[in-house]
């Protein structure tokens, strides 16, 4: 499990508390609660599941079991750039695997992992309903069609350029503050 960042623990306690407050502690609300926590925090930290289990008075293994059973739940923090590669039939047959491998090579992480700087995460999904432009990659919320390895190179370059620009901005801001 990933290390929590500074201040993350407090944030988890606050957000999970809010969401629990909105729903009753009825077992039927468990999945909607987990979904909302994930929407809010980006993933389900172990701590959040423990808090939920206690509030709902169910064994925490039940909550853990549920989150591993359902593919939607993410136990690792997502990257700033969430990359999802479609592995639906249409995409798989025209190079979905090749696109996945290209990203793996670039990022040096595997499917389901996040880079240690939490900038990128890689996931696979099954059919996002855009088979007509397969292979499809979903970057954050945007859908990219016909993703060849060269397109992967292009996407990565664009990300890196964005990152650099941001870093530069930050550096400039810090400098200003320093003045």
């Amino acid at each position: 499990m990933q290390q929590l960042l500074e201040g993350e623990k407090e944030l988890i306690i606050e957000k999970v508390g809010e969401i629990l407050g909105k729903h009753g502690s009825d077992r039927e609300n468990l999945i909607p609660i987990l979904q909302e926590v994930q929407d809010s925090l980006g993933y389900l930290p172990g701590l959040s599941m423990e808090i939920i289990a206690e509030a709902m008075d169910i064994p925490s293994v039940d909550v853990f079991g549920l989150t591993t059973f359902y593919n939607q739940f993410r136990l690792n923090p997502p990257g700033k750039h969430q990359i999802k590669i479609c592995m639906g039939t249409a995409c798989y047959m025209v190079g979905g695997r090749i696109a996945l491998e290209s990203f793996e090579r670039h990022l040096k992480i595997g499917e389901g992992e996040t880079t240690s700087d939490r900038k990128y995460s890689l996931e696979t999904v099954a059919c996002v309903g855009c088979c007509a432009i397969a292979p499809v990659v979903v970057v954050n919320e945007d859908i990219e069609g016909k993703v060849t390895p060269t397109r992967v190179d292009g996407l990565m370059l664009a990300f890196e350029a964005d990152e650099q620009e941001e870093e530069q901005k930050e550096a400039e801001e810090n400098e200003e503050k320093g003045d």
Partner: protein
Amino acid sequence: MGQASTELYEKIKAAATEKITALKQKPVVLVGMATCGKAAGAEKVREAFKKEIESHGLEAQVIDVGCMGHCYAEPLAIIAKPGHTPLCYGYVDEELAKRLVIDFLVNDDPCYEFAMVALETNDVFPTFSDFPRGVYEQKMILEHCGFIDPEDIDHYIDKDGYAALAKILTLEPEEVLEEVKSANLRGRGGAGFPAGTKWEACRKQKEPVKYVICNGDEGDPGAFMDRSILESNPHQVIEGLIISAYAIGATEGYFYIRAEYPQAIRTIRTALEQAREKGFLGKSILGSDFDFEIKVFQGSGAFVCGEGSALVSSMEGKMGIPRPRPPRLTTSGFRGKPTVVNNVKTFCYVPLIMKNGADWFKSTGTPGSPGTAVFTLVGKITNSGLVEVPMGTTLRQLIYDVGEGIPDEKEFKAVQIGGPSGGCLPESALDVPIDFDSLEEAGAMMGSGGLVVLNEDDCMVGIARYFLEFVQKESCGKCTFCRLGTKHMLEILNDITQGKEKDLASLDLLRELAEDIKAGSLCNLGKTAPNPVLTTLRYFWDEYIVHITEGRCPALMCKDLIVYYIAPELCSKLCNVCVGSCPTEAIYTREDGLKAIDQEKCVKCDNCLKTCPPQYNAVIKLSPPEMLKEKEGGSAK
């Protein structure tokens, strides 16, 4: 008492029609904004239309619509200008949007050169029925998809939406039930179970609290019919759900929609709210004494949850694990109460049947499978998208006439139908009519409507392996055969596609395992999981043999059985594209200026093959890999 509902409806309808008629007095631009449209860039196109319209100070409306099924030509836009035939334009980009505003809306030139099809019969431009696709296609439940605003209930009402609801409120629930039974409406979620029979079983239960659930889990990893319908015409599904609740005597309804479909979830939520405002939902619907509420439950990404009992169990906050029958869900389902689960499409037919009658419905399709079938046509096919044809249409008509065949002058090899529960059918099976029973005889399954066309570049062992890997991951693990049997089969298929399996006896073992899994699994996930393997063994036996005995993948797809090679006789010394495209620097320039691949470094990413200019096409794949020695031996001379 019942008549009140029709009168109330007539008022609502008149208001909606007035609004839509007023809308049509001005030019209207409809942009396809379902997930598929957005993916192709429809948002930018819409903005371009809006900006250009504004800059010319025009009084024209831009409206988001859903998917009209011609996904291959997205982004799509329809322009309806008073005095002109409404025209549909395909492959619209920002430039074309601007041009259409200036040429068509400002001036009066409809730009026929960019138009794809006209939506009304006219003397100038062809309509859908003038194309082969239009001849075979018959739209029942997709009729309005892509032509109405899914976010505005008045568009649906203007098309007689909710008229069926108003009508059935004047009937007894039993009469509604009889009509659906007489229509022989079979469930469109895969198994084809008669909906009326299911409803009746539920209605008969003494328990007063009953539930009806719309299954929008759509787990087949290559299909998107349900998503498209939910996004494009949500009220049709809602109306069907309300009518079914009336017939069954249900008190509460649910939409179970998979998490991967955020837009469908949003659209349904908005639609439910609007239906409530109009009085189609909630307490005393349309002034009757019928109360009914619908809620939305968001699935969380487990294929097995599409199975009725697993779906119910996941709604109860538990793991989605199927349970044995009896008791059936109609006896004991959600919260232990009688429950009906039907597919999205099944509900869509209900308002149409109630409006037009069972005989109307039965006049389309075959006696055993009346009505239409909705498919997503994808893969190696010219016109990919969403299609609706009468049951009984053959696969050949669907692929060659509706889909316009295989692109790039490639050979058809197989069609995968029914997803992980279905099978791969070869050329010789293309004259099988599409209906529940014929497809099952051929070893495949109707499934929920995913249809993937495969050509000569697709390896049949590879696709069997793909589906098995999918079900293996998605097996809930409850049944030993499903859990371990699929794992064992997957190992064998992995070995075959990696060239590690040299013994033909492994194919017998595959068959035996398949039979055991079919016999020993509780739910249809396990029972049908071996289908993709069994059909490929049955129809593409030779491909398995060649993999095992020669270590060769005839489709050049199995990564471990191919190598990339640059043919010296085709390579141009002057071009360097492949060298630059290689992510691992595996391509180098030989002393004589030709390019070559260092096999140790090559990761088989396909980059060089894709980037080598078409006038050379010098990068080729060889299988088995040993062929390389021959080639290199030859060229060294």
